[in-house]
């Protein structure tokens, strides 16, 4: 078994008195597409952000591609060059055109000249179906389009791992499909992805592993098929029941 591209050992994070992450440990390998599931407030978003120290962990160790992320003088800029996030609320920069949103990191952090960066941007925007909106501003786009731009922005730097924090939760229901379809393609390509989501259909189709975060720890994990069809932990069963209950209503 090759070295994991992401290693987490005994991760802890508290906000004041609230102990959110109570010792999370897991490994993720290249080409894994891992879904992190959990109830609201269970710390999934916090966990995702701790992995590149967007939020500072209180305790624990993290390695990405062999780099020790949690060491005091860790090269955070290097780590952030090989990882990318897609956020729930897109987090685009509204004063920059779509193409500038996508090329900003390439130009400023990766030192790629403008012309080359824009060619890359064009390619990834075509991938998400938005090359004709290159010169628009985010404010002129729908939610689904903005999230696709955010995905393009993440893809442009060709990251080794993409972290997605509930990428469809803030979208109108009719716009969810277009975003999931792109994520589906990425999954089929073999992109290493860690995705926090509630979209169980997507989890079933596109991910190969599932982790359930409950009470600050991962209480159930394993291959997607197995975990979803034979859930063991009572909290996880409760979670699935709640989600599936909503989907069961006949149309």
């Amino acid at each position, binding site marked *: 078994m090759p070295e994991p591209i992401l290693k987490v050992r005994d991760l802890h994070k508290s906000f004041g008195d609230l102990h959110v992450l109570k010792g999370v440990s897991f490994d993720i390998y290249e080409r894994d597409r891992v879904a992190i599931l959990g109830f609201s407030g269970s710390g999934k978003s916090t966990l995702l*952000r701790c992995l590149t120290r*967007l939020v500072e962990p209180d305790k624990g160790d993290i390695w990405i591609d062999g780099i020790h992320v949690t060491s005091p003088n860790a090269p955070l800029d290097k780590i952030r060059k090989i990882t990318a996030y897609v956020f729930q609320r897109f987090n685009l920069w509204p004063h920059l055109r779509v193409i500038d949103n996508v090329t900003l990191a390439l130009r400023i952090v990766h030192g790629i000249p403008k012309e080359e960066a824009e060619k890359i941007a064009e390619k990834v925007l075509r991938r998400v179906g938005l090359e004709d909106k290159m010169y628009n501003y985010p*404010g002129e786009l729908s939610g689904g389009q903005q999230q696709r731009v955010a995905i393009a922005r993440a893809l442009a730097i060709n990251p080794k791992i993409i972290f997605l924090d509930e990428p469809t939760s803030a979208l109108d229901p009719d716009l969810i499909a277009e975003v999931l379809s792109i994520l589906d393609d990425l999954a089929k390509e073999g992109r290493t992805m860690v995705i926090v989501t509630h979209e169980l259909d997507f989890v079933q189709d596109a991910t190969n592993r599932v982790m359930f975060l409950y009470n600050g720890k991962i209480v159930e994990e394993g291959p997607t098929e197995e975990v979803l069809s034979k859930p063991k932990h009572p909290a996880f069963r409760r979670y699935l029941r709640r989600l599936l209950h909503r989907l069961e209503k006949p149309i």
Partner: protein
Amino acid sequence: MDFSEIFDFIFHILPYLLEGFMVSVQVAVLSFLLGLAIGSIMAFARLSRNPVFNKIATAYIEFLRGTPLLVQLMIVYFAIPIALRIHIEAWVAGIITMGINSSAYQAEIIRSGIKAIPQEQVEAAQSVGLSRWQIMRHIILPQALRFVIPALVNEFATVLKDTSLLYFIGVPELMRRADYIAAWTFRYFEVFITAAFIYFVAVYIFGTLSRVLERKLAIPGMIVRI
């Protein structure tokens, strides 16, 4: 009431008053720019995580906003020269005082503009590896400056109107000239109404320029907060 005679009179004093107003404008512009320079520094000091910078900046701002401009003028033009045995020209004292005074208000304006940028955008910038300085330069400042234009133009209008206080330290601006003519002709009413009118037109023009500037800088789909 002989209106044509009144208009004649106003017409005659207008050039003299406008010359004074030019002094008012020059002082206002220099004071505002000084305020902008110091205010920017103070804004960042207040935003800084360093408790020393933070506390000094806060004390500075609170003191300047908590005392009347006229009192500050008296201190700079009368009190300090006496204490330090130096001579300060009236117009210099005026610019220094008004500049420092304005810097306190501008610091707060700039600071609120910077804080208005949603943390999510900063988070996205951090996630792709931008440094703190790069985030300030590419993400925060371009947006913050757009936000603060209306408030800063308003502050300039305030500074312009406040130049009227320089009357008390003998700067030959609009109010001093107005008072001179009024005392000489006893036509206080016409003179001061005209002075008010001059201030009003100037403030109105700057307000319009500000709206034009805002429109030119507006970005489709981005709502600048009111």
